[in-house]
């Protein structure tokens, strides 16, 4: 029965081929450092799930942002825990992305034929930093407000276009409701879209080119 169901499904989806390509592919003998990429993927998924849960209650306006975060933290059942996971997941994400990248540099894994995989990885690093920067403002507490004030002001120090960048980041001259809406939109819509797209390409390339082998002293 099971076999017939599998065949029926495979005839219509070809899932066995995909299963084979992804899960049954051969991998050179590698060490524990090679788990860092998967770990990053896991934390990214943790961020998505907890992030989606948080948006159910979070309100991105200066009037209510702080209240809604307070509500999530102090009244919503397990809200504090979801927020804790998202908060610490953010730090873990940065740590793991950097460690993963160091592993790739150390083993020369960015070389032929994986140059494009590397390039998408560098952009993913920037996306991660972007997540950290935009997410920091959302609780709209003192730390959030002032760190973003200073952070955007630093961007304003770029010659010629600094003022323009500052106004784009803040949506005006000062930190305001527009800034919060903007940071929220980028954090919740723009960056996740970019992240998913690049992660898809990154993973596709990893599977297509195979995980690099641990180089020997002669390599």
């Amino acid at each position, binding site marked *: 029965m099971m076999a017939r169901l599998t065949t029926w499904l495979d005839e219509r989806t070809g899932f066995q081929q995909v299963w084979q390509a992804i899960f049954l592919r051969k991998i050179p003998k590698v060490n524990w450092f090679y788990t860092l990429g998967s770990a990053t993927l896991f934390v990214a998924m943790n961020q998505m799930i907890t992030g989606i849960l948080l948006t159910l209650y979070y309100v991105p306006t200066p009037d209510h942002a702080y209240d809604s975060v307070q509500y999530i933290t102090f009244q919503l059942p397990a809200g504090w825990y979801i927020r804790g996971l998202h908060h610490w997941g953010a730090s873990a994400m940065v740590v793991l992305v950097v460690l993963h990248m160091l592993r790739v540099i150390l083993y020369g894994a960015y070389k032929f034929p994986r140059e494009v995989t590397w390039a998408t990885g560098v952009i993913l690093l920037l996306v991660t930093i972007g997540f950290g920067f935009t997410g920091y403002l959302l609780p709209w507490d003192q730390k959030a407000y002032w760190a973003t004030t200073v952070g955007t002001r630093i961007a304003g120090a770029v010659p010629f276009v600094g003022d323009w960048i500052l106004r784009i980041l803040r949506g005006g001259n000062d930190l305001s409701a527009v800034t919060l809406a903007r940071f929220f939109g980028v954090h919740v819509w723009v960056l996740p879209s970019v992240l998913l797209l690049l992660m898809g390409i990154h993973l596709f390339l990893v599977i297509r080119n*195979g995980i690099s082998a641990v180089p020997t002293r002669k390599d």
Partner: protein
Amino acid sequence: MDEKEKQAYLEKYHHEKEKGVPFFPDIIFKDTVVILVIFVALAALAYFAGAPLEERANPADTNYTPRPEWYFLFLFQLLKYFPGYLEVIGVVVLPTIGISLLFFLPLLDRSSKRHFINRPIVTGATLIGMIAIIGLTVLSIREAPPPAEAAGGDAVAALYIRNCASCHGASIQVATGTNLHNVIAEGKHEGMPSWSADLTSDQIDALAGFILSPGGSSLFAANCSACHSIEELVASSPVKLKEALGSGLTYEPHKGLQLPDWSKTLTPEQQTQLLNFLAAPDGQRLFATNCSACHGRYVAYSGEKEQLTKTISQGGVHLDMPAWKQKFSEAELQQLARYVVDPATAPEGKKLFQDQCAACHGERVPTAATVDEAYDQIANGGAHQTMPVWGQVLTPEQLDALVNYIIQANQGEDTEAGQKLFESNCAGCHGQFGEGGPNPARPNSVITPISSEEFLKTRDDITLAAIIALGQPDLGMGAFGNAAGGPLSDEDINSIVAYMRSWETNPPVVTAPEIEIQTLVMQGGEIYQQICAQCHGVSGEGNVGPALSDKDFQAKNNDQAIYDTISKGHNNTSMIAWGDILTPAQINQLVAFIRQMPPTEKPATPKPAEGQDAGNPPAAEATPTVTPTPKAASAPVFADIEPILKKRCAPCHGAMGGWDASTSEKVINSGDHGPAVIPGDAENSLLEKKLLGTQTDGTIMPPGGKLSEKELNLILEWIKAGAK
């Protein structure tokens, strides 16, 4: 890598792959183990550490020390090494180089070598990069501003920690001759804001003193701060300071006090440290404390800078005064001498002084310690007043700042241009002569005069310029400077300031508009009735604000505490910082006025109208046939609570908007966070929470403290009874 190497690599890789393991389950197993470890770590961190949440964002609180998230700390630290115009290196150049190197790494390193030892450049660069990032992060954490308690009672150190340490670390090295006051007041580069809107001139000078001489600051905290506030001493004359330190117990104001002999307990180095701390190089202030007593507001000087420096530092015979005994009678001389020593004791000398002395001495009465001394000087004349040898008193920095100020002040500003700009930009709200008027940005509030002597004397040019450029958002004044998107250039602002300064020597309008009479000329009692009584009651019985005539209040607060409260206000209440609006003298009058209020035992809480008092209907009206009082007692209606609301809530809520207490309908539904009342459900009504102080948002209402038990119960009963 050429084609051959590529093929060789692919073949070798294919071979290793064949020898390898399947992704599932071998690799998946390893991944799962690591993921589990990470998940447990995350779960534990979330459980035990949680996610922090600070106070609600407060854009007005510029004292907050911003810290970025930890993974940005290294960038933050990096920026500290590129101040001023170099900042672009830290902001743009280095990050761009770093990211480009990363992104193009496969193109830069195209050799076929893969082992890290065979790629020394990449491995080395990565190592250096990581060490730099970790090192900068560690440095940033170590240079983090110590908590304010670390200042150990040194108020100025605490001020420094709050405002400067987050960027500058524990101390700042300053090149000699820097006018620190200007740097702090005006800001220097992007990232160093202008502080003049947030700090008073005194605070800025105290900070400048601290930066130049931190040791002096701790000496001050240890030895002087028990009696002196820093604001008082930075504004005093360096000559006096030096005398106080040098002459020990013979120094007049210190006589008879239980004090150590400063000339002995402090080493000469310590004395110098203390002096450097107390007299920070701020030209305008130095001029005001040291020179203006004799020179008035300006010294006309058009010569060389060197000559001026020499004159000031060497001092010299200053004025030749005629020997007045040839012209005045003995009685006149005596009269004048007494007037000069203390104008109050001999007002009859004023006319004489104005006729004969004012031509040279101006408005100022030259001081002399005793009548005899004054008599001697007036009678004999001569080089009675010698300009001090300032070179012995002032540090080189101070001298420099003083000379620069005098020269600048002499260059003069075109007050006509300033006047035009003032009329088109400022007069709308401040009046043509800076006399103030109703505040269009805040109903029921007035703009106090900015042309008063008091206002101008207490703000230096930089402060005035900063106020114009950045506005005063808390008081409803927008920013006028170009930098903040306003219409005025720095030059425009300077000429407006110059125009405002011209009021100081030449005060505008004697025919004061009525608003000026209302605000500036008012005395203690009048101010109280006009302003304070709105919340504290006409005789201090309190309504929205606490009862000031209350015995407890009077006992608990000394004069200083009351003064401070009036001057600084309470956050988030309608008790604003009146120190910005009233002069110290006026506040002192208020303190005195509050002190003489006849004490009352309990805060005289306003009672609801007689007969509607829920518990005890007065017998006189309890005629069952006419009024069904028992009904009123069991289920209060709006009319019962209206007097309470009117007296205790409407003073603010009527005028400030938001919640409206005028009808039962509005009590229930109006307000930003409405509904304020859920009829029948007092416990969940915002109104109840606000009155009991159990609210999660804002403060208890009324801000002066809970209503009386009786009032409270009546309102709660009313809600429970359906809020009809």
